[in-house]
């Protein structure tokens, strides 16, 4: 029911949607989030991004986040795919899909999954600039706040 993957290859949204829902007649809604590489950061031009992770712990952390989503909402299927390695602007970094009988659960779970992933899964981004320099991306307080907003209350009805 849950598919979690960490991979260097691009993901294909149509393939993942089909794997999640084709042939199912109990799904009423699928929420989705696709994170993509932008070409600027803090006003500087980005030529690429490198994603590093902690093999082993990453998969465990993602599985834990998916399991928590399943405890909070009546989900019929979840897909989380996160890419690592070198990515260029326009490429997809992360795909989250959440299927449920009802849209409120599908959409809330989608938001929860990406917010928790952002603060709990061991990935680190390095940005490559046009002048050849690089910099590690710093964690953002607003991501912590977004993740914390889910910490104690289920938002299935929001």
């Amino acid at each position: 029911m849950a598919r979690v993957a960490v991979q260097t290859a691009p993901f294909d949204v149509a393939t993942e949607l089909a794997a999640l829902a084709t042939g199912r007649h109990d799904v009423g809604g699928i929420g989705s989030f696709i994170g993509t590489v932008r070409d600027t950061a803090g006003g500087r031009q980005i030529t690429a991004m490198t994603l590093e992770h902690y093999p082993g712990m990453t998969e465990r952390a993602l599985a834990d986040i998916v399991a928590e989503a399943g405890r909070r909402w009546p989900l019929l299927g979840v897909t989380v795919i996160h890419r690592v390695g070198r990515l260029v602007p326009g490429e997809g970094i992360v795909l989250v899909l959440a299927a449920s009988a009802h849209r409120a659960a599908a959409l809330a779970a989608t938001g929860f999954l990406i917010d928790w992933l952002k603060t709990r899964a061991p990935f680190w981004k390095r940005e490559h600039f046009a002048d050849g320099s690089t910099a590690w991306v710093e964690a953002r307080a607003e991501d912590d706040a977004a993740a914390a907003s889910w910490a104690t209350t289920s938002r299935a009805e929001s």
Partner: protein
Amino acid sequence: MAELRILYFAWLRERVGRAEETLALPTGITTVAALREHLIARGPAYAALAEPTVRVAINQAMAGPATAVGPGDEVAFFPPVTGG
């Protein structure tokens, strides 16, 4: 012999100068906080471990300063995560 496997990620890996190492577990080191102090005392390469934002995982689960460290553990130090 009681050993720990220690991993470093992202800018911590760069500042420590290695991705991983094996450490003979010193007598009396039983918590994350004590291990971190022990490593920092080893020399300037480990100064980055003193950064307050550094996170620690024991056996691939997030840990706090008081979390127990024992023989055979895999201990990872890394900056706040920035995926997604």
